């Protein structure tokens, strides 16, 4: 029963966060829903725990995605120079390409 609550909580959190998904809340909700439905018959508690952990990882990834997207948009809008970090990354890419 405890697991059932965690799964529901995870689903709610994902749907809540999916509203801001770049491709739209509906796109995210449909896919998220499909995954939950696909796995609805799994009854091994360990397997369920593992999948919850995976879902929580997706939540973290979404947070990071939104943060980065916002940061990059603002930087492009308000700051025309690249950061030190970006210069390094660019140089590494260039080096790799060569």
């Amino acid at each position, binding site marked *: 029963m405890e697991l059932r609550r965690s799964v529901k909580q995870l689903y*709610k*959190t994902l749907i809540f966060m999916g509203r801001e998904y770049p491709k739209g809340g509906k796109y995210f909700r449909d896919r998220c829903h499909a995954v939950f439905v696909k796995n609805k018959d799994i009854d091994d508690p360990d397997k369920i725990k593992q999948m919850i952990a995976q879902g929580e990882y997706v939540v973290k990834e979404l947070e990071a995605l939104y943060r980065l997207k916002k940061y990059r*948009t*603002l930087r492009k809008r*308000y700051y025309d120079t690249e950061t030190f970090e970006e210069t390094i990354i660019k140089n590494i890419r260039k080096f790799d390409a060569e």
Partner: protein
Amino acid sequence: MARVLVGVKRVVDYAVKIRVKPDKSGVVTDGVKHSMNPFDEIAVEEAIRLKEKKFASEVVAVTCGPTQNQETLRTALAMGADRGIHVEIPAADYPKVGPLHVSKILAKLAQKEEAGLIIVGKQAIDDDCNQTAQMTASFLDWPQGTFASELKLEGDKLTVVREIDGGLETIELKMPAVVSADLRLNEPRYATLPNIMKAKKKKVDKLSPSDLGVEIATNIEVLEVSDPPVRDAGMKVENTEELISKLKEAGLV
């Protein structure tokens, strides 16, 4: 330990494509997604971190605007602010409100709440005024650390690393002070669903500008709001000769 006041503004979301009203009186805001000004999120985050590091006793979020501003305040509370103050301004009067009024309100509230530090975003992404922190500091006659990209508090000494043209400047301020947050100050946390629910229980005081003795009147008249000029499409050239001839044609070389 100081009480920290953070100013939060409700603006059209950063990801929304802005449209100008056909009568050129402003931009379309009805039915458009709004959220907290991203620079204010950074300010809220910094205030919460100060509290977590036991440098601040309480974080109070302040917003000025119509009823919908409650959502913005709620986001600040969900992030971790302790309580909120909503200075309610009717939607009809809101277009008249500018940084001057907001800074007067913030200054009055700072005195009323006995705040030791005010943190605001350096500017709002809708009007891009970049004036609120500066004017608040002068109303209170407090020192200001604008465009902060690093903040350190020791006793009543505040060290601020500022982003300036071509580099960074480090200044020391004596508290109480006003700080405005720049983009690289921190990475704001996400207001999670359970925290938003919990935030509904946090205390929000409602005030009107007249409660604080601030009059909403403006000397500024908006003549016209228009789209930026559209950039013409470019063209591809096959070789250098063609490039030079095109440049000559355009009279650029």
